């Protein structure tokens, strides 16, 4: 059972930006391959997002799993809506659905040229 206080903290985090990624590590220094993969996708699409480092906060780390009924990190939220974890984001990116969903939500997308 998720305490109201923790639920409130998570809700506050999710509302803090249009695109919020709960991840292990930071966008600049991800500490897990799955988190790094999602950061890679978001960066490649030139999307401005905020990272929440769950390694800094056990309450959030466990709480977010109950909040979304999702057992793993990373977790991506767009305008308050849970979009998915690493597999779903990767799949949506590959099919073009991610771009479409971000456009529908009015998020600025500026795809970056591939790094050599």
């Amino acid at each position: 059972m998720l305490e109201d206080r923790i639920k409130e903290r998570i809700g506050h985090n999710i509302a803090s930006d249009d695109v919020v990624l709960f991840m292990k590590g930071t966008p600049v220094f991800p500490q897990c391959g799955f988190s790094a993969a999602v950061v890679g996708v978001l960066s490649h699409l030139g999307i401005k997002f905020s990272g929440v480092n769950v390694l800094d906060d056990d309450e959030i780390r466990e709480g977010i799993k109950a909040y979304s009924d999702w057992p793993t990190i990373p977790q991506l939220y767009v305008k308050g809506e849970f979009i998915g974890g690493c597999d779903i984001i990767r799949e949506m990116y590959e099919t073009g659905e991610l771009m479409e969903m971000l456009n529908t939500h009015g998020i600025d997308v500026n795809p970056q040229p591939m790094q050599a």
Partner: protein
Amino acid sequence: MPMQAHEIETLIKTAFPDAVVTIEDLRGDGDHYSCMVVTPAFAGKTRVQQHQMVYKALGGRMGGELHALALQTKAP
């Protein structure tokens, strides 16, 4: 304690008897799997819901003893 591929398959098949389950041990270490699940039970569900259904079938092991399972789901 890593899980064997056939244990993962059994859990998923128990929840979705008509599912086609394809599991690959990505590194041969019994710890990093990719898994594709195709079942009519997913019809009309979002990807998030489909994955949640599989995670439920795995009975809370995902994120615990099963730490790396790249999951792909779809309805046939």
